């Protein structure tokens, strides 16, 4: 169970290999990787601001919540900050479990929580200037579904 916040890039394969190293009780590993996308060819890049004193604490809290809900054998959140260009990796999560349904659900949950509760803000730069990215309403809705009675 680990959380890292860093300016530099990460290596998905190495991170997953590290989570599984020396273990034979793992059946399923699910990963999500978020990338800087430029859908209309105008994005020059963005700056990812964060709140250092809170970021790792918030991510660790989200991870602990996932561990309480699903039987995870390991999990990892890596999130970058600073200047990123189109195509760059922004962040990853990985969830490790004996069974695939748990790994898939926990990874989806981590992403939904992280989007709305981890203190990061994106400022995009295009030829027209720089602007803060608005939060998406679908992200708030994605978060809300996890608190429905079940």
């Amino acid at each position: 169970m680990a959380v890292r916040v860093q300016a530099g890039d990460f290596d998905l394969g190495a991170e997953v290999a590290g989570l599984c190293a020396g273990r034979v009780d793992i059946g399923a590993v699910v990963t999500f990787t978020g990338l800087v996308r430029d859908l209309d060819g105008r994005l020059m890049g963005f700056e990812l601001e964060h709140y250092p004193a809170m970021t790792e604490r918030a991510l660790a809290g989200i991870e602990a919540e996932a561990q309480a809900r699903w039987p995870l054998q390991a999990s990892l959140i890596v999130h970058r900050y600073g200047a990123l260009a189109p195509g760059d990796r922004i962040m990853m999560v990985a969830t490790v479990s004996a069974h695939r349904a748990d790994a898939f659900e926990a990874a989806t949950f981590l992403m939904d929580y992280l989007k709305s509760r981890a203190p990061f803000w994106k400022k995009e730069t295009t030829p027209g200037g720089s602007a803060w990215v608005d939060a998406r309403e679908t992200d708030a809705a994605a978060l809300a579904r996890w608190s429905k009675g079940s």
Partner: protein
Amino acid sequence: MKLDVLYFAWLRERIGLPRETVETEAATVADLVAELRGREERYALAFSDMAAVRVAVDQDLSDLEASLSGVREIAFFPPMTGG
């Protein structure tokens, strides 16, 4: 009491600084916001739409009703857009 008040993203830009120490007797976050709004136009502007502002109290997400008793650090920022 003395509070560290932090601003992020467009709140930081509108207010023009990333953090400041505030001497206040405000009882809740809402009281603190009212006090800051009364200071200068840039604060009034930054806090003009509180539906677009989130708050963390001592690094935990919280809300306007939260008490400031014993608190060291308050942060104001827009809805998060990480991930």
